[in-house]
């Protein structure tokens, strides 16, 4: 087993600890930043699980956020289900969507794989943009947040909502940490390194990839539900390919194949956006320049570079597979 990375725990503790402290003490505007970071972190962790650990580069992952958000909106707003139950249903639907889409897209590979994930997610976006019931491309407001009053938490307070989101992001981090270190995670690593050999060892490769899609789909759907509760608004934008692309960039800039990297990337993306936005409307240009600079200086992402700098091997899920042949 590769040595555990000594950098990851301090960095993650610092970032999440900072976010939690911020959630408790900062003003109303900055609370929205904390919430946005927490939700983005959950989303990009699920992307990284597919991209960095299972080797499945998806360009349509926001589609699963859309599934979660729209399922929650439908079940709680139209069917009148309690939000908690509706959230469970949305996550389950995210997993089912992951299985269906996973079974479909894992039949192709390379660029075609990326294109199919993009196409499927944009089909969802196109449907949502025309769905009158959900306000089509205007979206629909009046969504409720989860009711935790029975345990003394009022999520309608942004502060409480921020704390809960940060805690959920921490849980998501440890959920994926557990997963990638498990025997199942090891099988995914084997598939990523050499699919052909994994199959020759008796591994039903396709099924493992579909399982990875189901897990990542469920978690992204969950992130979509939090996003909906944050804005109390359901809108097709949640599933747009720009969000998928941003998520992928955050993963790559932070360090794909590590869990700490995407967390760093998520914090950086939101903070940089909000800070630069206050100076210029052209924040995207500066964000683009920053990310190009990072990728040039650190091809392994920020975290991969940090790990190399302190002279330790990052706990990466290994390089691209060698050409497999027989």
């Amino acid at each position: 087993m590769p040595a555990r990375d000594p950098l990851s725990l301090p960095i993650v503790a610092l970032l999440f600890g900072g976010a939690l402290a911020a959630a408790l003490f900062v003003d109303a505007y900055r609370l929205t930043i904390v919430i946005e970071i927490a939700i983005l972190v959950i989303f990009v962790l699920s992307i990284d699980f597919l991209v960095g650990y299972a080797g499945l580069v998806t360009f349509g992952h926001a589609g699963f956020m859309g599934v979660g958000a729209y399922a929650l909106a439908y079940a709680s707003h139209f069917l009148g289900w309690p939000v908690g139950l509706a959230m469970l249903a949305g996550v389950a639907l995210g997993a089912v969507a992951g299985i269906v889409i996973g079974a479909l897209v894992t039949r192709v590979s390379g660029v075609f794989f990326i294109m199919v994930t993009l196409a499927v997610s944009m089909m969802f976006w196109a449907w949502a943009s025309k769905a009158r019931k959900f306000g089509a491309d205007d979206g629909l407001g009046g969504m409720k947040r989860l009711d935790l009053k029975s345990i003394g938490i009022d999520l309608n307070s942004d502060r409480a909502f921020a704390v809960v989101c940060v805690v959920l992001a921490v849980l998501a981090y440890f959920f994926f940490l557990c997963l990638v270190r498990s025997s199942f995670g090891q099988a995914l690593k084997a598939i990523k390194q050499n699919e052909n050999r994994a199959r020759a060892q008796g591994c039903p490769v396709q099924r493992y990839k579909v399982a990875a899609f189901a897990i990542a789909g469920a978690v992204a759907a969950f992130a979509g539900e939090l996003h909906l509760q944050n804005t109390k608004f359901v809108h097709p934008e949640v599933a747009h390919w720009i969000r998928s692309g941003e998520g992928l960039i955050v993963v790559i800039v932070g360090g794909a194949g590590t869990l700490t990297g995407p967390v760093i990337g998520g914090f950086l993306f939101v903070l940089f956006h909000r800070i630069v936005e206050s100076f210029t409307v052209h924040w995207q240009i500066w964000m683009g320049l920053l990310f190009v600079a990072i990728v040039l200086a650190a091809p392994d992402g920020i975290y991969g570079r940090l790990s190399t700098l302190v002279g330790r091997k990052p706990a990466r899920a290994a390089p691209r597979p060698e050409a497999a042949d027989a």
Partner: protein
Amino acid sequence: MLEVERLRKSFGSLLVTDDVSLSIAAGAREAVIGPNGAGKTTLFNLLSGELRADAGAIRLAGRDITRLSPDRRVSAGLARSFQRNNLFMGMTVAESLATAAALRSGESRVFWRSFARAASAHEKAARLCESVGLADHSHTLVRHLSYGSQRQLEIALALAAEPRLLLLDEPTAGMSPEETKSMQRLIADLPRELTVLLIEHDMDVVFDVAERITVLDYGRVLAQGAPAEIRRSPIVRQIYLGEAA
């Protein structure tokens, strides 16, 4: 153990496996020889399921596996090594063997417990390292192994699949004479109950290991018999050993 009946495979108009039939008894050691391009590796790919046969049948211990996927054939008891090293380059030797053990036992479906705690997989990996002579390298990254050691790992990975029938595709390809000797010993020391079918170019290895030899040329079975017969057969001497008849 293995029954192959009139197996055919063509790529376009090129017939690469032409009516090949084989019958291998349990515990037997057999070799497939033939000049380059004779269709030996294609035959292995058909047996292991990486290629689908156009016609014919493959039975493993009486069970028809002709239509099974490669991973199902492994569960049915068939494992192979590859002619060109086909390994988990980013893992250590012990890690890749433990991974293979977990894939075989179904431990790899466990997502709630750390792989580091999959004790039986790690014990099995240690035993395999020992048995193929890689114990000293168990914590070496596979890509840092010497070529010869990578060949040994090829065999160890196939053994980790706990096969009843082991297909070895040119185990000594590219090896030095010393490495070839130790590989020869390794093959000779394989458990007797294991059925072994190997492709090999090194005639010393073939005549040392194999109890029966099948000669392929242009996808057809040219001759089949004991090593002594094959050595004497004029047609084999002419076409394969390259001597004037």
